[in-house]
């Protein structure tokens, strides 16, 4: 078969387009059940989050709720957002800036008994850092306090 430069160029263009299309389809397939949605305790109380799906839970650590289990490495605490509360269990070393009464984002799954099993806890890295998901909440919180004063 005689291949001409024009044909080769056309074939390359088609291949490139196929690669881009392939990437989009593959990404859509991958994202369908692997994107972790961000929920607040209020969302979970409202039943928006499905049991067993990877997700992130964000809110404030309820004061006085942090308990260490007998094994010394499992921690239980409650994440709240003013109205609703979600109990969380986490097996691991808590990040340095994990504090009662301050912001936290937990990565993990909702168990059948409606407790949140966290694989990973993200706390703010320094006093200037705030996970963007919590940024708005914190700003609103601050604004509310200023108004109260």
């Amino acid at each position, binding site marked *: 078969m005689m291949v001409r430069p024009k044909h080769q160029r056309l074939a390359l263009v088609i291949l490139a387009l196929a690669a881009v299309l392939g990437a989009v389809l593959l990404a859509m397939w991958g994202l369908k059940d692997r994107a972790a949605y961000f929920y607040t305790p209020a969302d979970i109380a409202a039943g928006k989050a499905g049991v067993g799906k990877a997700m992130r839970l964000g809110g404030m650590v309820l004061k006085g709720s942090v308990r260490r289990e007998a094994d010394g490495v499992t921690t239980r605490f409650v994440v709240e957002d003013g109205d609703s509360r979600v109990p969380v269990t986490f097996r691991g070393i808590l990040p340095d800036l994990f504090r009662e009464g301050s912001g936290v984002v937990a990565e993990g799954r909702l168990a059948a008994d409606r407790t949140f099993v966290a694989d990973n806890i993200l706390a703010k*890295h320094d006093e200037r850092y705030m996970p963007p998901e919590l940024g708005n909440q914190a700003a609103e919180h601050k604004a509310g306090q200023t108004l109260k004063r």
Partner: protein
Amino acid sequence: MIAGAGLAALWLAAALSLLGLFLSFLHVRGRLEADRTVRALAIVQGLLCLFAFAMLLLVFARTDLSVALVAENSHSAKPFVYKVAAAWGNHEGSMLLWVTVLGLSGAALAALSHRLPSRTLIAALGAQAALALGFHAFLLFASNPFARLNPPAPEGRGLNPLLQDPGLAFHPPTLYLGYVGLSVAFSIAVGAMLAGEVDRQLARAMRPWVLGAWIFLTLGITAGSYWAYYELGWGGWWFWDPVENASLMPWLAATALLHSVAVLAARNALKAWTMMLAVIAFSMSMVGTFLVRSGILTSVHAFAVDPLRGSFILALLAIYVTAAFLIFALRARTLREGALFEPVSREAGIVANNLLLTVILGVVFIGTLYPLLAEAAVGEKLSVGAPYFNAVAGPLALVLGVLLAVGPLLSWRREGRPILKKVALPGLLAATALVIAFFAIPQSSMLSKLGLALAAGLIPAALLPLIGRNPLRTPLATWGMAIAHLGAAVAVAGMAADTAFTTEKLTAARPGEQVDIGPWIVEFAGVTPAVGPNWTAVEAELRATRGSGVHVLRPQTRFFTDPPTETNEAAIDTLLSGQLYTVIGRSDSEGRWQLRLWWKPLVTLIWFGGLLIGLGGLLALSGHGHRAWRRWMAQ
């Protein structure tokens, strides 16, 4: 005074880049002979950026608290090296470093690229000046690193302790040299398309720039991965954090470009394709800059959230990418078709490599940006992490690995001999390794089994192109290719071994207790206080034994005062067979301390592989240098 001089230099550099852009436009249109002036302007502009950056280092070294940036990010009681490195451990300073590298890249292009045709070179310098102009404007109007405080702050706020690490001195500058070094390939491609001179000569002139940027990018990513590994104390070496992806995406594009530019140089094929990749590679650098510097993503690297900055970089990105694509769309049709090749040939292998890298780049790009799009479009907050990236990019990377074994053995234009015979031995090794993996480590993931099998075949296959050649007569580029491919194989081996063989233990222990981890018995001897220059710490003593000899590890929890922060300092013992990785957590009322231990066989191969890839690049680059030197001597 110093800050004022730095700021003045930035304004002057901005003015010169505007002038350079204007003159190069006139030159390319044939209105004016401005060849030497444009080159001189590019060099002076680069030096002015360097001067401004030196001034920033100086105000940080002196802890000049009348400069807002110093007051925000430094502290008088800090080790000297971190005072200086703090200059780029923040948004404004790192953007100045970015612009400095951009300026110096333009200067280097003007000073060193004698092989480019004059019209292409001047058009490329014009493109580089256009880039510089936009990012200068960003610095001066939205991120002035030299803004003053009146009155000066009494004391600085200090640097994030996670950044107080030798890694900060090395990782960002290296990464930026790679990131921004790709701007040269971008500018050369834009210049060549404007001048209509896309040929082998151009590819030969472009290749060392791509290679240089790619080496820095490779080393920067490798260093960043190791830094995150030991500093974060999570035992992982790649988290698919948006900021890591921001550096991976230009690397993927640059890797594709590096291969296709070789085809253009050797065979005069893949012309438009190569130009497109050059545009995409630097566009990915700008996307990365946007992701990191706009602070819209959750990340350790997100210094501050400022909508103005995000929109500014997004606007620059949109302008440059649109302009480059427009030039491409208008000029690509005028390029002559490239040389022919058969479906089984070296060229076709590299096309397949490029397609796979493009698909990987595409899925990483979509996965990284999807959270932003979802939030902007439907207000849905979500994150995309390792499960997605491993599932979609992992298998593609394995296919790419198979191709890596076969591709270099193919000959240019058409392959006449049966190729399967050549890769029979590596193929057999891989198959054997796969069978062993199924029996020996049935519980490990499919991806890690396939990865181990691939590495077993790929390590010998990478060296096959060197077999049967006289080592002294083999071109440095061939050596470089073999070493870089070997590095990729070694890194795959490390990644797969880490996933398949790592054992982890999380426990709470009292002093005197023993913990088993893999082949190790670790005795927790107790904790003692420790003191550093600007921190205090609780330090555990762990005595690890495996057969004979005691390895002592001392993980710490450090407390910094400015700003008040705690960090975990992992203690890592490196052996030939792997790493023992230990972290100490908190104590409880019963006198127990949380300990987290990992035994990670062969994990160091990951970074050793990264270094080998960089070394391969250096060998190939020194081949270019060697030829340039000979040409220069001959003149």
